[in-house]
């Protein structure tokens, strides 16, 4: 099953849950006391959103699911370290992002560069029809540019401009001051724009 942007907006509201920090904390507390179903509720509350964020970095859906499971396992192992005075969502996403980046680095592969190779084409959720091809080409070009950004800028750009997290949420996820995140975001956008333009200038075929 594939879902699109409307669902994404709904999930975003749900997952970042302005709504539910207290009940998150309650579930965490119950889970700490050995209530598996309480942790199950947390998993179900956040899994779709986490999967989507991971799929920004790892396109293979099966691999993304493995990483999401790994992330939730670590969350479970570290429930002791969760500070209930803070929101659970960013803490959980931080672990998820770290698990993902950890994986990418350990593999020492340029996953970003593989996202659109033939090997992965058959894994696209939607096999593109003819009229979707132009759009997919645009996605490829955009990703080829994003891939060229240094990681610390790339993450912020993806989380803000593609995933729609606010800068304060990204600050909580990456454990940085919001001012730092804003600075990186500005740098990321300026660099993206510069590379994008240069790429147009040197011909669309030029990529990393």
């Amino acid at each position: 099953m594939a879902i699109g942007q409307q669902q994404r907006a709904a999930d975003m509201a749900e997952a970042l849950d302005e709504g539910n920090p207290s009940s998150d904390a309650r579930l965490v507390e119950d889970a700490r006391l050995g209530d598996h179903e309480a942790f199950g509720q947390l998993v179900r509350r956040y899994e779709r959103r986490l999967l989507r964020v991971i799929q920004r970095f790892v396109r293979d859906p099966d691999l993304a699911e493995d990483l999401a499971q790994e992330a939730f396992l670590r969350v479970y192992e570290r429930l002791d370290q969760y500070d209930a005075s803070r929101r659970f969502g960013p803490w959980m996403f931080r672990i998820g992002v770290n698990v993902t980046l950890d994986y990418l680095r350990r593999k020492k592969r340029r996953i970003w560069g593989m996202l659109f190779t033939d090997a992965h084409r058959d894994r696209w959720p939607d096999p593109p029809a003819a009229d979707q091809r132009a759009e997919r080409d645009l996605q490829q070009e955009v990703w080829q540019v994003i891939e060229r950004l240094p990681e610390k800028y790339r993450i912020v750009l993806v989380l803000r401009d593609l995933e729609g997290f606010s800068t304060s949420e990204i600050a909580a996820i990456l454990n940085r001051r919001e001012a730092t995140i804003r600075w990186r975001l500005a740098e990321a956008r300026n660099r993206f724009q510069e590379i994008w333009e240069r790429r147009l200038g040197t011909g669309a075929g030029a990529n990393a």
Partner: protein
Amino acid sequence: MNCRQARIDLALCVGEDLPEAARRESLRQHVAQCPGCRAHYKRLRGMQRVLESSDRNRTYDVGGSLWPQLSNRIRRLDESPGPASRFNGWLPFVAVTAACAMLVVVMDLRAPSSGHSPSTEAIPRSMLPGPSMFPGTSQHQGQNTFLPVGRSQQGHAMYDLESAEPHGTQPAQLKVHEPPATTDQLTND
């Protein structure tokens, strides 16, 4: 405001991420008399549109819930013998000895007033009696050491995710103890 600062602020402005009204105002003044920055802003807006449209109809793969499989793994994790298998039986012995020594000290200290058993120090968290053991935000440093040790040494990288960083101050770095491959994880500024 110079052009360099203006281009940082313009890049934030384009996504409505420039919070201070004062900065927006001085940015407006600069851009009003700087054709270069005006052109730059136009290019940035074009870039935002490219990003948005490239993502507009992106779809995501969503299978069933992760929970059924995950709950099995968690159950196995909880049922696994923990430190015992990894330390050939020595750690429990040492830990029990240490816990007993601690109990002696604790009982000694609490003896006159404490009605209930202080032995919760040596009991896994999942067996603790009630939520009052975890009041609010404190982390109970030094208590319940059995469980975190057993769980956290499962071969994962260990991050100090909440390393005593108060709100609104210089954030603590994300410290990574292992493996070495992750030492620069989110730490390079």
